[in-house]
Each structure stands twice: as C-alpha cells, then as structure tokens.
C-alpha cells in the first residue's frame, strides 16, 4: 500500500569496514506513533489522527504520561469489529470521525492521518483517504498521511515519516537563490538560538522543517542546502535530495563541539570567513565548554551503556566521551545509517562496541556482564535495572528535553550527571 514506506533500514552490505553487532530478537522500543507526542506540540495548528486499535490509543496515553496541560491535538480512530467484518465501510467511518473532529477543532489547518499496524495489515489506504478528504476540506485544511506503525517504524522514525510526508508539499524555491533549511523538530527556544547564530554567520535566512505553523512550509529546490538537526531523518533527507536539495554532512548539534561542527558545515557551504565564524561562535562555544566542564568531575572515566531507542545514541556517546571523558561500552541504536552517522562514528573512541537492532534479553545479559556505571534505556527497563543496583538514565527524557545547541550543552551533561548526584545524596 502506498501509505507504507519501505523500512529505512538499509542493507548491511557496504558497512563491513565497521564491526557492528546486528541483533534480531525482541525489541523493547516504542513504535513511530510516539513521535506525535512532540510533533503535535511543535506544529501548533496540526492534528494527528491515528487510524488504529485500542492498543495504539493506549500507547499514546501511556507514553504521553497523560501530560494533559491542554487538550491534545491527537486522537485515535479505533478500528472495531464492524469495520473488520465489512459491516461498516472503513472509509465512510473514517469520514465521519474526521468530520466530528474538524467540527470540534475549527482551528486545525493540517490533519495527519497516521497509519498503524492494524490499518496497514488490513490494507486501509490512508493516502487515498487523505486525497478524498483533502478535496472535501481543502484548502482550509490540508490532509496528509504517513505511517507510524510498529511494523514499519521505530520511535523517532515516526517523525521521519511525518516530515517525509510534508516534503512533496513544500513550495519550490526560487532558482538561483541559495537557501538553508534546518530539518528536524527542535524545541522553540533551541530553534531561535540556532536561527540567531546562523543569521549572525550571514548565511541566507534559515528555514525550519517542521515550522511552528502548518502554513509556513519552507521552500526547497536545487539551490537549497539542508542540515539535519536530528539524526533519525533518513527518509526525509532522501526525499529532499530528490527535490534537488543538498544535505550538508555534519555531526549533530549536541554539546559545544557538536554544535560548532554543525554550524561550521553551514558556514563552509555558504563561504563564511573563518574570522566571522569565530566572532559569532567563540563566545557561546566558550560559555558552553565552561558550563559543561563543571560536570566533568562527576562523569569523567565513568562507563556508559546505551540500549537502542531514538537513534540519538551515537551522537550522545560522542558528546559524553569527547566533552566529558565518559567511556562508552556498547552503543545500541535501532538503525544505523552509515551515510548520516559516519561523521559521528569517526569521533567515537576506539573500542566502542556498536550494536544495531535488539534482542533485549541478550542485551541485558551483555549489559550486566559489562557492569557499566550508567545505562541509558527506555521506561520499561529503567526501574528493573535500578532495582538491580544499576544507575540508569531514561532515554525518553533526551527526546523530550531541549538539549541541542550551545546553551543547552550543560543541561544535557546534567541529565547524565544527575543519576550520580542522586546516588551520592541518598543514604537509604
């Protein structure tokens, strides 16, 4: 079905130069639906309608921790027996749900129909639904679709598919006018900081995907260069390249050094002078380095083990080893895209074990055997490991907290230092 994108896991041929442990067993990770938790807050006039089962609705509610500060801009159209038995036409049913929803939320400008495992297994074609509903509710409401299913996507890949669904909608850039696009959801405060830095460098006014409003679609064309702000956007990158844009290879903006290298990739692509680059980045770089260095005592020499989760694992391991002197033992990632990750892998200390995919019980065995000082893992594993006496850091916090850029570098270090701090305080 067209709503299903090919899994972005690429074949392993070609990666043979790097020893990577590839595991295929039980994966203890969220599916791509979970990305909606941050996407629905980022795009302020978008709504995410999952077409799925009660399980999908329950996942969203449990993963979101029922953080209802306001009514969420997501919901689930739960497939029922009648839909499966053909007693109700699934398309008619979906139309009714969408109608109820849009009447209730007239402020919505962009509606995503999000595919799930059940909708994909029964081959409900959400791209046709999106087209049909788009004719009915457009142009006021734009209707797009993507897959967040667990059979196709792991956690952050849901955002990849969401942004990929927006790429064909992006307006064409004016030929001959070079532009810079930053791709990947960032907290608003981080986006503003990076925008100011890029403006300071004098590169063309940067655009962001996704933007805060559905109408602000950044233009794209052969003169567009783009920088990934998040590592998990392989499919989006591929589609942007298909529209002629060029990806600037760079490490990710985590930590003082990561942020500088990331900015440098933009500076080099747009011919910014080294003097200008230093003028703009030296002060925040120094500030970040100093702030980060305060955590060095707490973290230096400590070993760390990553369970696969968000694809941020490799950049995080690089930051922690390079700027804080931590020792990564195993760094697990759900998918390893060499094309995107090579600049990061090059910066990892020799002897770091990389693993891709998961067999959670086997990985737990390896983890216990390695006796790391800190384990980065998902919510299902954290308390059980703590109960065994192993310090943990929940990986989900790294996705839900502003951590990119200079001004957040120390916050990021603190997230890893806090478990140690806590242990030294507690006498019970």
């Amino acid at each position: 079905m067209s709503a299903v994108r090919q899994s972005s896991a690429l074949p392993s041929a070609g990666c043979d130069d790097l020893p990577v442990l590839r595991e295929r067993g039980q994966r203890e990770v969220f599916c791509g639906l979970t990305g909606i938790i941050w996407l629905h807050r980022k795009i302020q006039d978008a709504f995410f309608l999952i077409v799925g089962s009660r399980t999908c609705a329950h996942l969203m509610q449990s993963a979101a921790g029922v953080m209802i500060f306001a009514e969420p801009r997501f919901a689930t159209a739960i497939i029922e027996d009648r839909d499966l038995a053909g007693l109700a036409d699934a398309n008619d049913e979906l139309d009714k749900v969408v109608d109820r929803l849009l009447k209730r939320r007239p402020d919505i400008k962009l509606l995503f129909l999000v595919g799930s495992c059940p909708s994909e297994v029964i081959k409900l074609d959400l791209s046709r639904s999106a087209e049909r509903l788009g004719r009915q509710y457009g142009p006021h409401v734009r209707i797009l679709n993507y897959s967040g299913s667990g059979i196709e996507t792991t956690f952050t890949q849901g955002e990849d598919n969401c942004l990929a669904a927006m790429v064909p909608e992006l307006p064409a850039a004016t030929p001959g006018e070079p532009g810079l696009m930053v791709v990947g959801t960032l907290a608003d405060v981080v986006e503003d900081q990076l925008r100011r830095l890029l403006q300071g460098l004098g590169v063309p006014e940067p655009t962001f995907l996704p933007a805060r409003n559905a109408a602000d679609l950044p233009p794209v064309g052969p003169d567009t260069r783009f920088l990934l702000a998040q590592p998990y956007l392989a499919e989006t990158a591929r589609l942007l390249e298909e529209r002629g844009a060029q990806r600037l290879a760079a490490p990710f903006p985590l930590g003082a050094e990561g942020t500088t290298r990331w900015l440098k990739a933009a500076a080099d692509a747009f011919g910014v002078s080294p003097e200008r680059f230093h003028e703009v980045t030296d002060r925040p770089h120094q500030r970040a380095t100093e702030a980060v260095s305060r955590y060095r005592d707490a973290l230096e020499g400590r070993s760390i083990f990553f369970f696969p989760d968000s694809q941020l694992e490799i950049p995080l391991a690089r930051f922690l080893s390079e700027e804080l002197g931590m020792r990564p033992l195993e760094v697990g990632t759900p998918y390893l895209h060499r094309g995107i990750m090579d600049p990061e892998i090059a910066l990892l200390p020799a002897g770091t074990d990389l693993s891709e995919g998961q067999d959670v019980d086997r990985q737990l065995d390896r983890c216990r055997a390695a006796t790391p000082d800190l384990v980065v893992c998902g919510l299902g594993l954290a308390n059980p490991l703590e109960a065994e006496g192993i310090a943990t850091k929940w990986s989900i916090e790294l996705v839900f907290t502003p951590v990119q850029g200079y001004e957040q570098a120390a916050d990021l270090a603190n997230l890893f230092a806090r478990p140690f701090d806590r242990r030294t305080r507690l006498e019970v």
Partner: protein
Amino acid sequence: MKLAVWTYEGPPHVGAMRVATAMRELHYVLHAPQGDTYADLLFTMIERLPHRPPVTYTTFQARDLGSDTAELFKRTLREAHDRFQPQAIMVGASCTAELIQDDPGGLGRTLGLPVPVVPLELPSYQRKENWGASETFYQLVRAFAGANAPETGTARPARPDGQKPSCNILGPTALGFRHRDDVVEITDLLERLGIDVRVVAPRGATPADLARLGDADFNVVLYPETAETTARWLERTFGQPRTTTVPIGVGATRAFINEVAALAGIDPSAELDSERSRLPWYSRSIDSTYLTGKRVFVFGDGTHAVAAARVAANEFGFDVVGVGTYDRTFAREVRAVAEELGCEALITDDYLDVEDRIAELRPELVLGTQMERHIAKRLGIGCAVISAPVHVQDYPARRSPQMGFEGANVLWDTWVHPLMMGLEEHLLAMFRGDFEFHDAAGASHHGASHQSPSRQSASPADHAQQAAVGAPAPSFEPTAAANDLSEPAWSPDADQELKKIPFFVRGKARRNTETFARERGVATITVETLYDAKAHFAR
C-alpha cells in the same frame, strides 16, 4: 470506528498482562509488534514494580509478514521457556497479530514444551482490558484447578471437625487501584474473624496455587471485574459459595463481615463490636455539617463507582448528582444505584461525554479516575480518585486501602481533602471582594497552586460576578521595582526569550539573571546576559 482522545481501558491483552504480572512462575508470550512493548512501562513506571513484567513479545516487523511470523512465534516461545523456566506459559496475540491469524495456541501445542501452555483468545476489536483480565484468570483457573475438579454433581464434603473455615481471595491483579493494600486489609479482617485465607489470586499466586483453589470452603470476590466469572465457575465446579458484597465503606464492610460469617458459619459480633473505623464519628462531628448536600459526581469501574456513590450519599451526606461507569458489563448495577440515589446514570467509555456531563452538572466534587481528575482540574472542581485507570501518584508509599474499616478512613481523608474547610467556605462567601480570593486561591490547606473548588459551588450568577471582579492572580515572581535605578532592565528580546522558559522555572531564571547582572553592573539584560547567567548558575 470510534474517535478516542483518552481511553479508560487498554486492549484485552493488557488485562492478561495484569494477571501474568500479578502472578509468580508464569510467563506470557505475546505475538505483537515492537510498539506494544510500551505496556511494560505501565508496570515498571506507573506501578513502580522493580522487575519487568514476565512477558516476551515477538516484535514482528513488516518484512516478517507473510513469510515467517509463525516461525518467529515458535522460536520466541521456545527461547522464553528456556530462559525463564516458568511453571506455565500463556500464549496469545495482540490486535495486530490477531489479524494475521497465526494461532499462537496451536503453535504452542506443536512445540511440545515440558510445561503447560495456556492459549488465550482475547478478541481485541470487541473487548477491553477488564474483560481480558477476567478471561485470562478464568482460563488459567480452568486449566490448573480444573484438573482437580470432582465429578459433576458430587456434593461438597463437609469441613472436617476442628478445621478452621477457609476461603480464597479472588481478583487482585497488578496495576489495580489499591489492590496491594486491600488484600492486606481484608486478609487481616478475615483472619481476625478466624477464617484461613488459603490462596490469594491472581496476585502473588503460582499456577500450582491455582490448582488448589478448590480446597477452600468459599471464595471472597474482591474485584468482580476480574474474578466474578472465575468464582461462578468455581461455585459450579467445586460447590464453593462466593461473596457478593464488596467491602468499600463502613456499611458495606459490616455487610461483608456478616456475609463471610454466614458462609463460614461463625459469629461476627466480636469483630462488629470492635469496629475500627473513624468515619462514622468524623462524619457526625459538627465540623462536617458543611459536607451536607455537597454535589458529587461519581465515575469509575462498575464496582468502585457503585460503592463510592453509596458511601458518598449514606456515609458523607453528599448529594450524588450523577454516577457512571465506562464498563458496560456493569451498566445494570450502576443504573440501579442511580435510581436508588435519584440521579441519572452515565454509561459511556467516551471521555468527551463524561466531560460534557460534568460541565453540565457542575458538581462541587468529582470522584473518578485519572481522566476525571484532568476534567475536574480543567473545570476547577475538586477531585478524588476512586477507580482505575490511575497514575503513578495513586500508588502511594503508605498503606492506603479502599476496603475494610481502614479503607473507610482513607476514603474519609481523601474525599474531604479537596473540599474547603467549613468556616473557610463561609469567609470566602462573605468577603468575596478580598483581592486574595481569586480563582487561583484554593483551600488554605492546599498551598497556592490549587484551584478553589468552592468556585463551582457558587451559582451561575455568582460566577459572573466573580469573573467581573476578576481579581488577577498575584505574581509570585518578584519583579524589579520600577523606580529603582540600580536594578538591571530587561531588553525586549531578553524578555521574550525568558517567556520561552517553562513557567515553573521562569521565576528562578529571572531572579538568577537579575542577580548575575546586578553583581556585574550590567544595566540592560540582553539575551546574551540571560544565557551567560544560565551558564553561570548551571548545576
């Protein structure tokens, strides 16, 4: 298709997980995609269990479909058996696996594992979590106790002379609302009465324990949602009678004591005479006059909603203005209590319907689930949680049962807490114009952040008046005195930037930045200053 913003119940396999996780020596192999592993966090994060649920998922992917998902299931089952070595294994499918029809039960049989494999058929597109828990418990009990069933029609032999009467406690699961503490409370009560508690199940039981369920004289059904089907089967099969009273509230606890005493053939008067609840006296104490006729809306699972409605009316003196449940299987019981209390029943699992009803009824207190807590918060109404689904804060460290006499004490404390204290309410009504009496000021014993539930007690006209008075919330962030020249000023950019910082740390960020600027003689705080200060104070 049904539009759901929030759901009261998860899918039925989550009910099965609640049973599996409650038990010992049992494993559950679930044919499911990777995202379904989220369910682990319900137990490890919300209930704070220190171990993983005993569940292995196949986590099949799209590329496995149509090729070897059945093979994958078999491999997973065998490896789970070898690794965990349980007494028994349950096998089943989540919603997606149900569609691909691999028949986990049949596959499980073909493997010839040395332990019993119990197949679960939990139709995900028709049924929900509570049903799943009930069906799972029933299938397990049939599988393990069933082997020891007497010939149909055999009369139950009389209890040997000199043997204490005995019972099982049925229904408590993992992720239940206060099941942990209810079991302790009711076990103590039964033991004080001189009744032996043989098996508590599913919570804490092994498959081998289930096999001896038939030995006890009768069954105590604490949670009909999970245990009634099983108890009925045990009644038919072993001639074991079962309790029908759920001991929530003083009246129900007394009735429960009489009921078990009758089943056990003992005299309950000693226990009844030494009643341990303070609720009756607290309710009669003069300060509680202000509770009279408070308008209360009740919503939850069938058992807790029915119990809470009766307790609210008969033991607190509240007016129950509405009662409802998300669990249709208890519609009859909930309608009956609504009629008894003269209000309307609401049977729905649509969160939006519940929200509408609460907004329309304008109660002064909501007794509900975590969902109603959010609704009540939004509407500025006091709320106490009485039923699953609940969140992490509803697993308190202290013992906090809902059942028995201590449970009644807990109900007293938790339901009265969200309300204004008696005289305080009068003062609010008398001095409405006081600038500190505004929407953000709650009961004085709550601190500044709670909303005032008494706002809702006012008539619509009062509301309009209050809105018109509209006393603004006092700022808790100390702001620089405008005329103090030594104070640094905020540039518009920096001020904008500050607003992007989450509200709960903004005050601290503002103070720190100002201190930082003052110490360095910076007159105007720019965005740079803000971040210099942030870096300075980092830690």
